[in-house]
């Protein structure tokens, strides 16, 4: 179907193709330059940076920053904590949000628009201002300083937003599919599980990729609900590497690159889903 639909479009000339790739190559160079910068920085020695400045071309070359960053400041442990938290937050938030979005978008629930707006409104307040109340609530519930607290807080805070986004996508699903489901006497659970979730795969994958980068890069919620360094995420370890007065930028760059690998892999894995995934229109 994909092939057919594209064959229907007008063929592009060689000039168009060349322009397309030239423009995008330039754009990509602009977008990749910080990563090149970070890579270069991670391969320099501290003394080279201290003498020649951060913006200078390297006059030193060493991989030493990687093992050193990994050993110091709990980078390894932080990565592991971040992976655990990210996995549970992303999975549970998307599960709950897709359930709520399904209910709101497909059923005549009284005040459903108000409920949706209310859930979205929860995300309009800057998260920073909720930190101290959240810490107190976690303490009151006895889950302060546990990964559970980090996970449930972030689920709560993400829900409204993801529900809103998924609601938008679910409203766009063709009605005929649901009518067919009704005729097949599918219950709500089957409809949700067998029809809505598969059809929402592109948007779920896109959201999962985005959510992974956000949750993985979270610092504020973790430091608000945690006190023990053994439970800190990678971002807190990065912040410690940065130093209060003096920063070992080469170590920080190396650690940042290590921390970038998991969300980058997730994006890579998921982009297939929202790019070449199921074409809704092709189902008709």
């Amino acid at each position, binding site marked *: 179907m*994909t092939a057919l*639909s*594209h064959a229907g479009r007008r063929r592009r000339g060689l000039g168009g193709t060349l322009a397309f*790739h030239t423009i*995008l190559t330039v*754009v990509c160079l602009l*977008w990749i330059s910080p*990563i090149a*910068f970070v890579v270069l920085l991670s391969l320099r020695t501290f003394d080279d940076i201290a003498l020649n400045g*951060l*913006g200078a071309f390297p006059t030193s070359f060493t991989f030493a920053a990687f093992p050193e960053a990994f050993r110091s400041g709990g980078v390894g442990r932080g990565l592991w904590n971040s992976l655990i938290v990210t996995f549970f937050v992303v999975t549970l938030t998307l599960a*709950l949000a897709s359930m*709520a979005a*399904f209910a709101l978008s*497909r*059923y*005549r629930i009284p005040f459903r*628009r108000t409920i949706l*707006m209310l*859930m979205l*409104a*929860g995300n*309009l*307040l*800057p998260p*920073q*201002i909720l930190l101290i*109340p*959240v810490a107190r609530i976690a303490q009151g519930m006895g889950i302060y300083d546990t990964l559970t607290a980090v996970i449930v807080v972030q689920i*709560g*805070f993400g*829900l409204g*937003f993801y529900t809103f*986004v998924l609601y*938008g*996508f679910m409203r*766009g699903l063709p009605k005929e599919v649901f*009518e067919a489901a*009704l005729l097949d006497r599918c*219950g*709500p659970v089957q409809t949700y599980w067998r029809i809505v979730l598969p059809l929402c795969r*592109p*948007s779920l994958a*896109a959201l999962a*990729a*985005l959510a992974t*980068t956000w949750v*993985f*890069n979270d610092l504020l919620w973790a430091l608000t609900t945690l006190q023990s360094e053994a439970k800190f995420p990678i971002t807190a370890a*990065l*912040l410690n590497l940065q130093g209060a007065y003096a920063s070992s930028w080469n170590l920080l760059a190396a650690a*940042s690159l290590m921390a*970038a690998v998991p969300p*980058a892999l997730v994006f*890579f894995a998921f*982009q297939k889903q*929202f*790019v070449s995934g199921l074409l*809704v*229109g092709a189902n008709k």
Partner: protein
Amino acid sequence: MSTSAPPATAAAPGEGRRPRRSRLGRRVPPVVWFFLLVPLAVELFWVFWPALNSFWLSTTTWGGVGVAEPVGTANYERLLADPIFRTALWNNVLWVFGFGGLSVVGGLALAVALNQPRRFVGVYRTVIFLPMVISMAVTGLFWRIVYAPGGPVNNTLELVGLGHLQQQWLANPDTALGAVLVAAVWRQVGYIMVLYLAGLKGCDPSLEEAAAVDGANAWQRFWRVVMPQLAGVNTVIFAITVIDSLRTFDIVWVMTRGGPFNQSQLLSTYMFEQAFSYVNLGYASAIAVVIFALAILFIITYVARQARAEEDDL
């Protein structure tokens, strides 16, 4: 308030499918209530309860410990007289349009360009998304180097004969906000692109083909055929953009911290400074309430109208 159009009246004009649709939507099975109420309860507990606390704190003076002292509307009165708040508010209005507008246009353009089955598009998409996975600390450092005296921006200006425009971009009160805005858009574009890519997957390619057969050019096809199908996604992106514009924090904090002398301050950075550098939690909460009110103003009016327009179309 009428959330559900009464099926009995059947007021909606000429849609033959209505009876069937209302049969799907009318009766709400218990399990669907469960689907809705569990997430709602979690959010109410972890977001609304603390949020109500913050609303209440905005009427007090509180330093994080001890008893908060009620001061009525004093914090709000102080906001009106606070020159830094006025700067931050104005900057934020500029920010909503500059940051929001540019990132949506850029993200949409990239999504459309990269939604085609061409060579290397997967590589391009990944590259544009990659900045989001790099830690904010080194991102901020990178941009400070880019804008530094003798950095790439100034060197490029020199190279193309615009040497007189060279300056310390982040230290100049006139250019700091704009310089940060470019960095923020650069980071946001990948995110908007991902959402539009997901939205474009939901578009029906046969409609575009039909239009092409009818002789519509690419520009017409995009605006008349593709855009209408993206209505739902557009609503989502509008909301995201407004929320993010009002909450932008990290990139400003790592690049200028609102400086020099508060000239690149946004509401969120000023709030953070009040809350965590000065521990004026009452005053900071009042700023947060203003951010909340602005977001409501921008979003609820737009989104609610959108939702109402769709309402009859369940």
